């Protein structure tokens, strides 16, 4: 379903972001992408939703190849992806419901189905009662739920989440994470980039760890004991790098 083959990405100013990255994600899988800031998590996610193209290698998502994809194909692919960010990216001047509806409208979905789909998505994330609230009237956790509802509206085969709990307190984090697990349980694959090692440790999902743009660990290929130990984790918590901010 998703396959990266020997992918390398370089930025003109900040240099190598990724090199020799290869992995596959199967249908319905839950994958954590971990690593310190600047290790290339966000870059990998950008390559997955084809916001960027690799300088080398190939990213292959649901039949669309980074080497040949046209603008139209990319647009079409994104309608089958759910994308969620740390900063929610909601439109402040629209209600929760309008934010969710927006994702359907801009893809030219038939009007008749929009209302039902929107209310179903809001119910799924537990926000049916806040449909008419504006983002500023919602807590961080609630805003992220709206963003998730928006990402679910087109029945994605995979949910790509870039630090979805990065701006949330612990309680909200648990709630949002549980929501992602539920979504995964219903058959949607989830790829989640995160700093939160607690979250990673507490669940048993596949983990891919990056460091300096290289894949240093993939729990699908190595036994759990071979996982890089404390120094890397310390780095995870301490490091900061501007590259991640793009």
């Amino acid at each position, binding site marked *: 379903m998703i396959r990266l083959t020997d992918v390398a990405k370089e930025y003109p100013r900040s240099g190598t972001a990724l090199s020799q990255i290869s992995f596959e994600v199967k249908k319905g899988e839950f994958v954590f992408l971990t690593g310190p800031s600047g290790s290339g998590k966000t870059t990998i996610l950008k390559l997955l939703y084809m*916001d960027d193209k690799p300088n080398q290698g190939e990213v292959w998502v649901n039949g669309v190849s980074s080497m040949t994809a046209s603008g139209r194909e990319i*647009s079409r*692919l994104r309608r089958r992806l759910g994308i969620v960010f740390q900063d929610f*990216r909601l439109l402040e001047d629209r209600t929760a419901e309008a934010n969710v509806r927006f*994702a359907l409208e801009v*893809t030219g979905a038939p009007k008749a189905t929009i209302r039902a789909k929107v209310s179903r998505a809001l119910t799924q994330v537990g926000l049916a009662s806040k449909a008419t609230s504006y983002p500023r009237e919602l807590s961080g956790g609630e805003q992220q739920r709206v963003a998730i509802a928006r990402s679910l509206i087109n029945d994605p085969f995979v949910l790509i989440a870039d630090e979805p709990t990065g701006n949330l307190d612990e309680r909200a984090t648990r709630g949002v994470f549980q929501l992602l697990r539920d979504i995964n349980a219903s058959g949607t694959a989830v790829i989640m980039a995160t700093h939160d090692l607690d979250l990673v440790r507490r669940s048993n999902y596949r983990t891919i760890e990056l460091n300096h743009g290289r894949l240093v660990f993939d729990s699908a290929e190595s036994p759990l004991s071979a996982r890089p130990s404390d120094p890397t984790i310390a780095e995870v918590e301490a490091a900061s790098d501007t590259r991640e901010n793009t």
Partner: protein
Amino acid sequence: MRSVREALTASRRAPLLSILGVVTIAFSLFAFGLFGLVAINIRKALEQVEERVEVRAFLGDSTDIESVAAAMKDIGEFPEVARVEYVSKEQALERARKEMGEFADVFEAGVLPASIEVYLRSGMRDPTTVKSVADRIRTYHFVDDVRYGEEWVEKLYRLRTIATVAGLALGIAFAAVAIIIIGATIRMTVLARAKEISIMRLVGATDMFIRLPFLIDGLVKGVSGGLLALVFVWVANRVVNEYFLQTIFFSREMIFLGVVGGAFMGVLGSLVSVGRHLRRV
């Protein structure tokens, strides 16, 4: 249809920005329009002066009327010539007296020669053409002298060339300024909606789908800015007419062209602004 709705919603969400946009476009087109008005009036004035370019052939005293009539017919068939008029001695005297006013009595009958006045077609009044016509008329044996205000024609022609070149250069400069301002105005709209655009892309809207509302927005702003500018120019023209001097206004075709031009600039500005934005993000 959706794009129209989307464009309208966007203006409703940011009414100040939209009004600012229309007014900015209107003022830049107003400057362009005022310039255009000045340009067409200068041209009109020069044309009026040019109409007075004529070649005058003075005839010998003993010329018989048949030869003159034959010559006038010949000259009238020159491709450069619009019309030919005969001025008899008496008419010349009368005209001179009228022009001289208080010195009218210094002229006596028979002093002034009869002449043929040759008027040239518009576009045939440049020094070279005038001279060639004069030279040809000079070949008639009964023509004593040919005058056409050589220096004056040359000066007028030079003035016209300067006016044309300056008009073109200024016109291009004004148009460029208008285009840049319109582009910047629309760019503001695009930037104000940058987040919306980025989300649209993420959820899989095609570039065309994103672009269309902006194009319509640009079109509407261009047309309304153009119409507003037209009102400004019209008022300015009225004021000048009322208090200063007689001027002419744009013809209907020019007005139509101006509004279409405004619309075109609006669409082009949007296309460039959104295109650049989409390529960059």
